[in-house]
């Protein structure tokens, strides 16, 4: 079943075109990697799919509803409740501890502080960083920060996780570890993942790889894991 859909999405930043008519379907529980060279529109496509940006032309639908016509606050609510978003770096609030950072989306959803903290520590534990619950981002390594950020993105148990170069700022080994945990937990939860990357190694974790070039879909292929028989079609 199609979960997320983009139809003829066009987006430009002033005179510079970023997307020139992208069409994409993402099924429930599927892990899709969007790859391509720098400046091909990968992040812009992710932002349009996540409702962060509104396309200039075209449609973006979530479970059959066109979200590109929704108001900013409605799209924010959608991101808060149904989506999780993960970036390359800089998304943790420097002054909050790891547990508070992870608990933030739950607090926004109205969960009590105690329950939110318990859930946050539980998620940190699943990423192997529970001992950092009371540590601030500035005192963590890049890999630890990214694990916390991933825990924050998944703490509300979103239906879709959007990850923009989630391992771009990490060394190879740490990146592999973070990605392995992310994919494992996404599969456990049957979370759909849209993953932007320019690294074939990262794209190999996906069920499907969509390669963009000059703002358009160049070709679509199977991810490394999918080719071994895993993944969801």
């Amino acid at each position, binding site marked *: 079943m199609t979960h997320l859909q983009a139809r003829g999405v066009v987006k430009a*930043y002033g005179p510079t075109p970023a997307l020139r008519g992208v069409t994409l379907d993402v099924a429930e529980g599927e892990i899709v990697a969007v790859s391509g060279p720098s400046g091909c529109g990968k*992040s812009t496509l992710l*932002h349009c799919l*996540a409702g*962060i*940006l509104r396309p200039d032309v075209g449609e973006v639908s979530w479970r059959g509803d066109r979200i590109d016509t929704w108001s900013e*606050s409605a799209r*924010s*609510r*959608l*991101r*808060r*409740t149904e*989506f*999780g*978003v993960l*970036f390359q770096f*800089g*998304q*943790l*609030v*420097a*002054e*909050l501890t790891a547990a*508070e950072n992870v608990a*933030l*989306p739950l*607090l*926004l959803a109205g969960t009590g*502080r105690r329950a939110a903290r318990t859930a946050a520590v539980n998620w940190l534990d699943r990423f192997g960083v529970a001992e950092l619950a009371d540590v601030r981002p500035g005192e963590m390594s890049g890999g630890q920060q990214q694990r916390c950020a991933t825990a*924050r*993105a998944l703490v509300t148990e979103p239906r879709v996780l959007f990850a*923009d170069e989630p391992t771009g700022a990490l060394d190879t080994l740490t990146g592999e570890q973070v990605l392995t945990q992310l994919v494992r937990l996404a599969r456990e939860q049957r979370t759909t993942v849209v993953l932007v990357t320019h690294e074939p190694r990262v794209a190999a974790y996906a069920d499907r790889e969509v390669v963009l070039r000059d703002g358009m879909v160049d070709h679509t292929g199977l991810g490394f894991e999918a080719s071994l028989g895993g993944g969801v079609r």
Partner: protein
Amino acid sequence: MRPATLLRLALAGTRTDAARVTLTTLSAALATLPGLTALTVLAIPTPPATDDNPNRWSEQYTIQLLVEPGLRGGTAFALLLLAIPVLVLAGQSARMGAPGRDRRLAALRLAGATPGQVTRLAMLETGLASLVGTVVGLAGYLVGRKLLHHPDASGRLVLPTDVLPSVPAMAAVVLGLPLVAAAATAVMLRRVTATPLGVVRRARRTGAPRPWPALLIGLGVLAVAMIDPIVRAFRDTRLDWLFADPATRDLVIALVAVLVVFVGLFAGVVGVILGAGWISYFAGQLLHRFARGPAALLAARRLTDDPWASSRTFAALLASLVVGAGAAAFRARFLLDEQLQREQSRRAGYDDYAGPFSSFYLSTMDLVDLTVVTAVAIAAAGLLVTLVEGIVTRRRAYAALVATGVPRTTIATSILWQVLAPAVPAVLVALGVGHGFGRQFVGDHVTGGFQEEVCRASAELCQDPATRDRYTEIVQVERVIHSPDVPLEQLALLGAGAVAAVLITAGLGLLFLRANTAVQELRST
């Protein structure tokens, strides 16, 4: 490095750098005005004493503060005090875009610049911007002087637009301010080491603030309380061997008293400003303990993380409020004096008393209040700069939060919490300390407490030396202490005005939030 290269690099930068330079220029222009005005007041010539004018008054002015030579020093000093919030604004402006500038300096170090060269670059940027500002300020002063030169029908002036400070004095302001600003930049950069691999800030303060501010406030109160005993001790001690001339002795006593007042006031103001950091920390802790929502949690953590940010942010505002509350205590005392004089006059049969003493001081207090309001307005501008700087510095984290679905209203609410939670108690403390200082300084109005001859007979009998003694008796006039009322209304107005200024400034600052939480911020480095 060639001067042209140095200049080119000093003026290079982003929009934030341009904003910093513009604000530095504006602050320097604003600081020049009270400086030149103070010099103008001091440049008013004192005429020689004549039979018509034994007090050497400058009768060409309508304002008594300019007329009397003895009051002009104080007036000039008050004008210079007005420059303090402007200089604080300049300091806050200098912090704007500091992380970006630090990255630029690090990039220059990577390209081979020495630590001295990058420091000179930063000094040149500030120095040039300040010089442009002081020149603009000088031009504004000269134009304003022409525009405000309106003698009344009797040829008298409201402002000293007929005199100019000496050229060296004006040059000292126009050239001195940029030099001081450049030197201050060098001092501020002492805490920053721009290495080729980035910027390392040294000696960052950590941990909970200690209660030193309370000690400083206590020291200030003690100093002001000690003035009277110190003066009395000086008078009572036989110091003839030291001061042959009684006038010299009185001058020394006056100087010591002034010094003690300034030490006390300085300690009190610094105590209140540092106290804002202490208040911030504990407000943050309280908020963290009882906060329910994410906005309050974010604010609480920011307050405890860098409590001194509040000291920096509210320094000028709190200093203005201490002075304003002190002035309110003085006004209350002058009003009491006037009221008592009116009562005395009424008892003596003069119903329409309008004494010159209190009315002069009360009109002076109007000028002081105007100065305080101006200072609060300038301080609010500084607050706006700090607020916007905070938003710009955190724009990546804010943009990431918005992208993950955090409503901008949550971030805006957290910023409001962050501003108001320390501001409201700090404003109350500043008002309390300021009023306490002023109240101690002006003291009470004491009447009676002495013996008086009273003739209990007709005027005729009392005037006749032969009969007067028979009807005259010595009575003890009861000692009555009249305490000035606490000027609650004025203090409340001052506090409400300050909080309103903070709220308006915060509201204006939040207008920058949308632009700085755009998704494009996530892509900037």
